[in-house]
């Protein structure tokens, strides 16, 4: 092929289905985290009470997503 494709190329030809699926799943978690940290989802946990593990709810929410993203990164890294 001498002309580049018009669209985005995330995987080179020959990449296994399992590899593609894992990366797409991770991307889903990442997008969910990004959406969870901004309006309107973050607004659902805007009130400080009840405290979660001693932290105001919005702070605990962000820490939880930080841990979820880290867990997903660990899973992806170990699977690759």
């Amino acid at each position: 092929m001498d002309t580049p494709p018009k669209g985005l190329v995330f995987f080179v030809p020959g990449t296994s289905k399992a590899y593609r699926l894992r990366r797409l799943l991770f991307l889903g978690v990442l997008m969910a985290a990004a959406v969870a940290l901004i309006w309107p989802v973050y607004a659902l946990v805007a009130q400080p009470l009840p405290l979660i593990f001693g932290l105001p709810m919005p702070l605990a929410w962000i820490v939880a997503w930080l841990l979820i993203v880290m867990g997903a990164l660990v899973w992806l890294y170990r699977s690759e």
Partner: protein
Amino acid sequence: MEPWLVTVLVCGAYLGLSLGMGIASRRTVTGTVAGYVAADRSMNVLVLYFVLGASVFSSFAFLGGPGWAYSRGAAAFYILAYGTVGMVPLYFIGPRARRVGARLNFVTQAELLVHRFANRPLGIVLAIVSVAACIPYLTLQMKGAGYILSVISEGRIPEWAGALVTYGVVMTYVLTSGVMGVGWTNTFQGIFMLVVAWFMGLYLPWKLYGGVGAMFTQIAASDFGAMLTAPGVTTSGEPWNWWAYSSAIIVSAMGLSMWPHLFMKSYAAKSDRALRLTVVLYPTFQLFLVPILLIGFAGVIAYPNVAPADTIVPYILTQIEFPALIVGLVCAGALAASMSTGDALLHAAASIGIRDGLAPLVSHAITDRQQRSYIRILVVLLGAVSYYFAVVSDVSLVALLLGSYGAVAQILPLMFAAFYWPRATGVGALSGLLAGILVSVFFLAAPELRPFPIHEGVFGLVANIVVLTAVSLNTRPEPMAKLRLYTGIESEVRGG
């Protein structure tokens, strides 16, 4: 011995250790540009982890972060939120950049984009953005260091002398050891910052309120309770609006991994796995913002009306009768935060200035040896200019710093297109970047003209992506042989 003297001696010992470690690390790399700027592509996970973590968290983390929590409440959660996703692009883009960099001997971010898009002006624009972003950022680090030493010496060390000594140490190890000096000192400084932050963040709420939960319960029940409701309040005490908060998160998250002094560490990694593992582990460093914020919240009820809010940490230190040794260690932790960002900025900006700014403009080839000399000269010049703005000039660089955040985020669409969109062209990339920067700077300068009350960087990103796409589709693409190098990464063809 006078308590202030003990504190100053502890900080002096810390500075001495940093200097010794920075100079000693010179022996671990060759005397080439690749050694000076990219550590001979040999950094392991330990050093990369601390370089990345300690470079991200500047003196803002120890002074500004608690100040935000103290004065703006839940608004401070923003600095934790954008880092949650902000470093992840490096997991995917970093190893690709590392491999192309190793093959073509790149050491800066712009070299990669200039080659991929066959567009030299792109490198010059990126060099200007990088150096323009570095100076105000570095100036703030110097101001922070001078301020800390002045406070702990009870004014006996003037701010100009504190900044001079601290950055004299930084300059010495950056000049002698380059990125390895940055790497090993950041490891030491990063450990120091983490220990100090977790100790103070857990101790202060316990000492003043009986625990973290008790502290927040009391704040929630007090007149300050409203500040804990997201997204917090602005500096004037008004509720921060959701548009501004959400758009600031988007721009900061998109810009985080594109800061040149952070991205360039991709080239320093010894392997793809080392770089990926560093990104995987990065959230453990990011978590240290939690105790940093707790330090600021600890002052809300116990010490109301401290102004400016950025002085809350030194204020608390002077109010609670800590042993002078502990005060010294906390201040050394704050110095570590300033230096570990300042050194990476200084080193990266000087390397970029010469490799991307100067080299393309001179007609003859510059030898490796000359490049190293020029980079060192620029390290001194940038240090001197930043020092001038930190202690001599009254000119505020805040607008330049704010503008640079919007400008740095504009690099991400180009970097993404470089690796994932073969159809992206050099004219498209340059016009997209320029459109993004110009729109972003325009709306920063004229906020009243923004169609929506959102971060100016978002307008810039929209303009950038639209122009990059439209112009690329109407200009000639790069040859497929080159594009395969960027988009057809052989080792990513995996079986399982």
